[in-house]
């Protein structure tokens, strides 16, 4: 398991380097990378605030849950904070498992929980000023499927 929280940019390819490699019990690696999107064409930057101290422990707890539930061989999360430009990677997760269904499910689980349970807050900076991103109702609802499934 590896958790990285940093303000510096990261390269998604480098984040994956060597992950899950050279092991006879890993048949599937899934990665997700979230990038700064600009739907309006007006965004100047994305600012991410976080809760130093709690961030790493909250992410580690989420990863531990996923690793136990899907018997993952490994999992890795990186998340940036500070000021990001449009197109830059915000965060990434990677999961390694025996089979692909587990690797996919665990990566989606990590994303759903990171979105609503890791202490990050996004603010969009545009020409008219700054606006905090509002959590979607769907984000909380997405957690429901992980409670109902076996």
């Amino acid at each position, binding site marked *: 398991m590896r958790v990285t929280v940093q303000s510096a940019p990261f390269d998604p390819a480098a984040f994956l380097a060597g992950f899950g490699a050279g092991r006879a019990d890993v048949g599937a690696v899934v990665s997700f990378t979230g990038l700064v999107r600009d739907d309006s064409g007006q965004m100047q930057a994305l600012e991410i605030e976080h809760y130093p101290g709690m961030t790493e*422990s909250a992410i580690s707890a989420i990863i531990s849950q996923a690793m136990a539930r899907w018997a993952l061989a490994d999992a890795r999360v990186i998340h940036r904070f500070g000021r990001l430009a449009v197109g830059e990677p915000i965060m990434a997760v990677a999961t390694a498992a025996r089979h692909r269904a587990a690797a996919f499910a665990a990566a989606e689980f990590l994303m759903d929980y990171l979105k*609503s*349970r890791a202490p*990050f*807050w996004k603010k969009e900076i545009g020409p008219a000023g700054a606006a*905090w*991103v509002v959590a979607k109702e769907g984000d909380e609802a997405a957690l429901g499927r992980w409670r109902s499934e076996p």
Partner: protein
Amino acid sequence: MITVLYFAWVRERTGVATEQVDTAAPTVAALVDELIAREPRYAAAFADLSAVRVAVDQVLADFDAPLAGVREVAFFPPMTGG
């Protein structure tokens, strides 16, 4: 003495990121009531409690969580990571 932290727009309303609060409040909810009674900026931050989340000693908690032995309480909007 409890360290209280505020994040995102909760921080913008209280005007402070972190402060030491001398309190005997038995629960998070009681602490919030004390803060609201202090100054209008706290009343603004806590105007809609359904929009505020709380962490006690860096773990997500409810407003009825007890404060006995607690060193750090944080208030913030629903998280928007990922």
